[in-house]
């Protein structure tokens, strides 16, 4: 078993990636990802990891360089945030279409404008349809575990897709937390060598990124969609294996006190821990409240979501991003769509909250429950509202 240590989460993520025998990393600095980049470069500079560290001139080139490196069969890593992720956007669907198992940490941060360096999920949501496996973590331990596991998932022969691990910027990346860091031997045993599906090498010349017209494009999209959907089996297998090895078992959807709950809340990311305290407070007052935490964003865990949500009377979906002029937050839209065909389904309320690093206290979450329970005419169901906005 690994050692229990205290460390800043961003540094710990770099340490964890350093255990994964990466061959190459390309990163461009952006707050609040920078500590991951800096510590990775320290590991390379000190000879603790044997990898090429490419200090690119932009995030666009960071993603381009890891695509090139992954194309050669090198285990490749990058990390970014906010504007950097938006700048990479063009390349994300290309990486997944080429089926390159790149792993990336995203220190989630609000997208401009106006410029804001603090946490929300407005950076990852526009990347939703890029064909990547997308995982949200709740705490530092999970950030470490998911970072290590992401390589095994991405590189599995039945997956071969890029993975992003979403770590709330500042609220997680800059926290000093205690956690268990697996040992090098443990990671070596857990993580097999990367066996690429094709490589850019003259020993067997291949063409990657060929041009496809209407006669093939739809088939290529279908193949990618099936690959992403089918990756769930491998994700579950890898998470189960991790659970057996390290005692920390992960599910696509985590639940807290939902069995007898009348009203449920759904969160993604680090806010789950605060929301959990709110549940305890509400339970102490006799409110049958429960919490659902969505960990796997893509592939979307449709069956699991339905199973845990359909029996509630009311459901609060929380979003840390907004689809302007749309039906509500992105998580809300998807959850609502997932439940549409169910004969019995809860009334769904949507709160957009914690934008641009706005603090969320326990009382904010209990406030949401109180408001929803007070809505006896159900007038506010199926709509969305900005929580805590000055009117």
């Amino acid at each position: 078993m690994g050692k229990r240590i205290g460390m800043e989460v961003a540094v710990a993520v770099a340490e964890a990636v350093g255990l994964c025998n990466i061959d190459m990393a390309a990163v461009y600095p952006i707050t609040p990802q920078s500590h991951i980049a800096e510590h990775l470069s320290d590991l390379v500079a000190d000879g603790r990891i044997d990898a090429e560290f490419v200090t690119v001139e932009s995030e666009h080139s960071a993603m381009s360089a890891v695509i090139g490196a992954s194309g050669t069969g090198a285990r490749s890593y990058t990390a970014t945030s906010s504007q950097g992720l938006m700048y990479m956007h063009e390349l994300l669907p290309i990486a997944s279409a080429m089926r390159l198992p790149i792993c990336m940490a995203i220190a989630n941060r609000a997208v401009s404008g106006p410029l804001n360096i603090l946490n929300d999920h407005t950076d990852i949501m526009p990347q939703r349809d890029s064909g990547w496996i997308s995982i949200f973590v709740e705490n530092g331990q999970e950030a470490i575990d998911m970072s290590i596991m992401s390589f095994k998932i991405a590189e599995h022969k039945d997956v071969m897709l890029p993975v992003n691990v979403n770590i709330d910027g500042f609220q997680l990346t800059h926290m000093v937390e205690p956690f268990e860091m697996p040992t090098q031997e443990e990671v070596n045993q857990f993580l097999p060598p990367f066996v690429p599906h094709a490589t850019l090498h003259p020993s067997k010349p291949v063409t990657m990124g060929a041009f496809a017209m209407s006669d093939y494009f739809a088939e290529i999209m279908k193949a990618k969609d099936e690959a992403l959907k089918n990756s769930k089996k491998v994700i579950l297998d890898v998470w189960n294996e991790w659970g057996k090895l390290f005692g920390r078992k992960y599910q696509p959807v985590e639940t807290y006190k939902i069995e007898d709950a009348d009203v449920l809340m759904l969160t993604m990311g680090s806010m789950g821990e605060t929301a959990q305290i709110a549940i305890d407070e509400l339970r102490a007052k006799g409110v049958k409240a429960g919490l659902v935490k969505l960990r796997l964003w893509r592939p979307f865990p449709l069956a699991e979501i339905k199973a845990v949500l359909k029996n509630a009377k009311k459901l609060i979906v929380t979003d840390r991003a907004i689809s302007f002029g749309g039906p509500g937050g992105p998580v809300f839209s998807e959850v609502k769509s997932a439940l549409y065909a169910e004969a019995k389904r809860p009334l769904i309320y949507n709160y957009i909250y914690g934008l641009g690093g706005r603090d969320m206290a326990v009382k904010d979450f209990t406030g949401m429950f109180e408001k929803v329970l007070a809505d006896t005419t159900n007038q506010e169901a199926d709509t969305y509202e900005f929580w805590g906005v000055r009117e």
Partner: protein
Amino acid sequence: MALKTWKELPIGCVVSEPGSASEYHTGSWRSQRPVWNDTKCIKCGICYVYCPEGCIQQSEDGFFQANLDYCKGCGICAHECWPHAISMVEEG
């Protein structure tokens, strides 16, 4: 060639047959063809060097000819041949 179904596509659409574009014959684009007059040819190979298709080959006797499966009839070889050994002839 039958179009592949989505299940038959290689992972990541990697093309693993180098040079397979040669399955496609660009010769059908041609409106005129190069014809060599071997009595004028000095076997210098300029035609071979300058061919954008790379479809002009030297035979064992040292003379050159174009592979008409690919020759697009651009006329560069005839224009560049300094002994004027190549003429462009309209396709029938």
